[in-house]
């Protein structure tokens, strides 16, 4: 039995967040000042996504119906 699903839809946002996080983790290693600030902004993105998804009212409770 096989199942089809859109890889891009499921993992696309996760991939973007992975790239943003990786940039954030590396930039503070590369330099001080602006590089640190860049790192803080990048690493705040995944945490902001959590807050947004957790607190935002669901537009549709689920797309599975």
């Amino acid at each position, binding site marked *: *039995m*096989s*199942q*089809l*699903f*859109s*890889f891009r*839809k*499921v*993992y*696309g*946002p*996760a991939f973007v*967040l*992975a790239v943003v*996080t*990786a940039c954030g*983790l590396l930039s*503070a*290693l*590369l*330099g*001080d000042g602006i*590089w*640190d600030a860049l*790192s*803080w902004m990048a*690493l*705040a993105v*995944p*945490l902001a*996504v*959590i807050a947004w*998804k*957790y607190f935002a*009212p*669901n537009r549709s*409770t*689920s*797309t*599975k119906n």
Partner: protein
Amino acid sequence: MAHLNAKTVRNWYRLHKWSSLICTALLLMACITGLPLVFHDEFDALLQPHVAPAQVEAGATTASLDQMVAQAQARFPALHPFSIGWDDDEPRIFVNMSASDNPKDGEIRSLIFDAHTGTLLEAAKDSFDLMRFLLRLHMEIFLGLPGELTMGVMALTFVLSLVSGALVYGPFMWRLDFGTYRRNGPRRTRWFDLHNLLGIVTLTWALVVGATGVMNALSTPLFGLWRAQTLPKIMAPYHGKPVPTYFRSVDESVKQVGAALPQMEVSVVIFPNPIFSSPRHYLVWAKGKTPVTSRMFTPTLIDVETGAVTLSGGLPWYLRILELSRPLHFGDYGGLPLKILWGLFDVVLIIVLVSGLYLWLSKRKAPIEEELDRLVNMESSQGDFIESVIESGADAQ
């Protein structure tokens, strides 16, 4: 579009479940002790106030290390100099004395000097050090090297659980918008969604902290490997010669390293020691001055009698990776805001662990495994297996 069969998903799921179960308890401990450890500098300043060094103009000359060592020797005649350390943040120099070549916790007596004036600021207090206690729990559960290696295996299992978790994320969540949290769903659905949302969003951070945790746990064997590879060659010419009795000036030796490595600053000097350096050399560790190179240490071995430099240069690749793993594990390389973010990621990880444990513990009529087994056996049906998984995984209360 991705093709998935139920058997593959079942295997990923099993890997995720078992790798998570193996590491959850110790990982939870590591996350909880890690949270205050991220802020260890701040806690140290708060819990262990110290005498501040004198304010000096930039470029002021530094005081003699030899005199500091002589003072320490006079104060602790039964001990011998073990190492000299430079404080990262303030112009303070630690002269560490010990009776043993391999001192255990509490066996080192330290005097702290002003790097510029050379005056004794204070003797390091021998009081209970909460941060040190937490660090030992975090990295070795008070078991020494076996504990370190156990934590390394736990970190490796954690990485496996993250990878397998990311792989089952797709088949379990594909029908929902990314990161959907069904706030109005039953309790188990909410925990299921929370686990998946927090897990997938912080995946990269968790992978980096997990993988660097594996590296840090290997620190002792990796340094041992390096010493085993380099020291026999260095010691060969000294074979049969008596143990040195004359110890040349530390100041001169440090100056020598400073001249040879102008882009670096000396960070630690280890006195002749058969375990941590060589019985015939000062081992001088110098580091760079930028955020990344200040984590990279370059060793120089200087003959204590002749002053001949017997080794100077880079470390093998595995120690470079180890050095880079430290900041990426502790999050202490981008100021206080980075530490706060690190702490928040850590809290998120704790919630992922607890919610995972809840999802496993909460009893259900149709466990996910049984559902997956049934679907693997259903060869012909094009029934919506993913939907069934979501039903069984999320909606059973």
